[in-house]
């Protein structure tokens, strides 16, 4: 009898654990509190998250409207609204597997700014290379994030604040209501085959969703 109860409890625990993992998802940062106005989405990229069981994974983070850095890549914006994106790039860079993603595409004016300087193309084969991209293929958006010098004292645990970083800004118009996946196109998951495993395959790290509501 006791053994049966223990087995049942183990099965119930396993099912509960599996269900909770299968149904869990990163928090959604809500930027829809001021309808009709442009929204400001702020994120950062860090070479290693620095916490938990995936402390070495590269990751994006998102800053909530009240200034808190959250480990999520899902955010919500109003439809047909100008979205101003600011990304603090704390990671190093490298040459790109495909330089095609070195171009800025789909943003307002087809441009972005790197530390205040307008740019449209980054030559990833020069300088520090490209660390990551912010890309939303369904909307044709792609912005390369110039890397930091790998020899600098780069941030190794999120959220990063004072370490060397680049600031990339761009804007785009949100489309109609729907859920739009976005991702980094740089195969930046070191230690995984072709660099595309682990954090590159996990929502909340280098992949996320833009939820657009009416």
């Amino acid at each position: 009898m006791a053994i049966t109860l223990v087995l049942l409890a183990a099965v119930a625990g396993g099912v509960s654990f599996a269900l909770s993992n299968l149904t869990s998802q990163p928090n959604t940062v809500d930027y829809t509190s001021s309808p009709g106005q442009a929204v400001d989405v702020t994120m950062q990229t860090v070479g290693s998250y620095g916490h938990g069981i995936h402390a070495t994974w590269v990751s994006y983070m998102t800053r909530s409207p009240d200034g808190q850095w959250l480990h999520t890549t899902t955010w919500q914006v109003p439809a047909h609204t100008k979205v101003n994106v600011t990304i603090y790039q704390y990671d190093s860079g490298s040459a790109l597997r495909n330089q095609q993603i070195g171009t800025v595409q789909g943003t307002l004016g087809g441009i972005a700014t790197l530390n205040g300087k307008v740019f449209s193309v980054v030559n990833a084969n020069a300088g520090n290379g490209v660390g990551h991209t912010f890309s939303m293929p369904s909307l044709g958006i792609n912005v390369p994030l110039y890397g930091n010098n790998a020899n600098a004292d780069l941030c190794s645990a999120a959220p990063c604040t004072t370490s060397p970083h680049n600031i990339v800004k761009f804007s785009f118009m949100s489309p109609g209501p729907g859920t739009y996946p976005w991702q980094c196109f740089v195969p930046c998951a070191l230690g995984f085959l072709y660099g595309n495993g682990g954090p590159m395959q996990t929502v909340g790290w280098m992949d996320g969703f833009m939820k657009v509501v009416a």
Partner: protein
Amino acid sequence: MPGYDAGLTEGPHEPLSNGDPAASGGARPSSRSGSDSEPRHGWRMAGLWILLSAIADPLFYYLAGPHIPPGTMSNTADGAQFDFNILIIAALPVMLAVWIYMGYAIVNWRASRNGPEPVGGPKARSNVRIQSTWIVTTTVLVLFLFGFGTYELVQPEGAGGGQGPAPIWTPASHDVLPIQVIGQQWKWTYRYPTFGGFETTDLVVPDHTAIAFHVTSLDVVHDFWVYQLGVKADANPGQDDVAYTTPDQLGTFVVRCDELCGLWHGAMYNSGKVVTELQFQSWAETTEHQLAANTKFLPPFAWTYTPDANGADGGYYPDNVDPYSPVLTYGAKQPGEPLPVETTGKGRT
């Protein structure tokens, strides 16, 4: 103990003996009355089958045929639609034969409440005529499908599928537009080698022009599937898989990845369009000019590339340049030099 035939030509309730000529479908004593002449079941079913097949096949071909996927947007799509129609026309009589026999058997040879249970007898176990007819018919049908399918697969310009790096069947036209298709997790990009080798996410093709898609991948296996054009080719890293097509109609089409390739496999699609030759020329020249700032940083055009398996620490580069070196391959600058950004815009975000 008498056996009961459940075969094609006789009622199941009639006692049979070995060598009974009833297998030919001839008249038989009724199993119920014992005196009525047995109808020629085989001829009845054959007549019904011929009649329904003669109606169903033309009906299908002329009414449904023009709407069968993948449509007629290109010669390869048109060919695929024709093949599907022929296969369905061949399959419809087979399906009707099964249904007619089943329906006929249910109506005529079902068990009655007062009659004996139908059980298999010698005729159910062996009927040379039925067996030989079945074997010959299916053999002829399968051989026809084999021959037809092989011819359709290898006819000029192939069937729109990837033909590997050395296609045996090539378009008759010498004026073939090459477009390189590059798959990567998780999007498609396209290089136009005859327009300076620019690389873009937009797939635009001219109508009435033979096109050679050269499909490859920078990481895992993808599959380039342009449903409306009837083109489907694997995108393998290190391989140039060629597929030909000639668009016949203007319009848009969808490009999908048809090989499960990771998290955003389901989002790995985009749309392309078929435009007139003049529109294509204008688009290609404009795009070549617009992307010139980035094209000069791309590797020299090659049919395949060797991505760095280590992930972030590598570019993609022609197979004949190994080991990879940004400096040797691109004349790259080193860290510490001015930011390598191209400025083309005047506004600010």
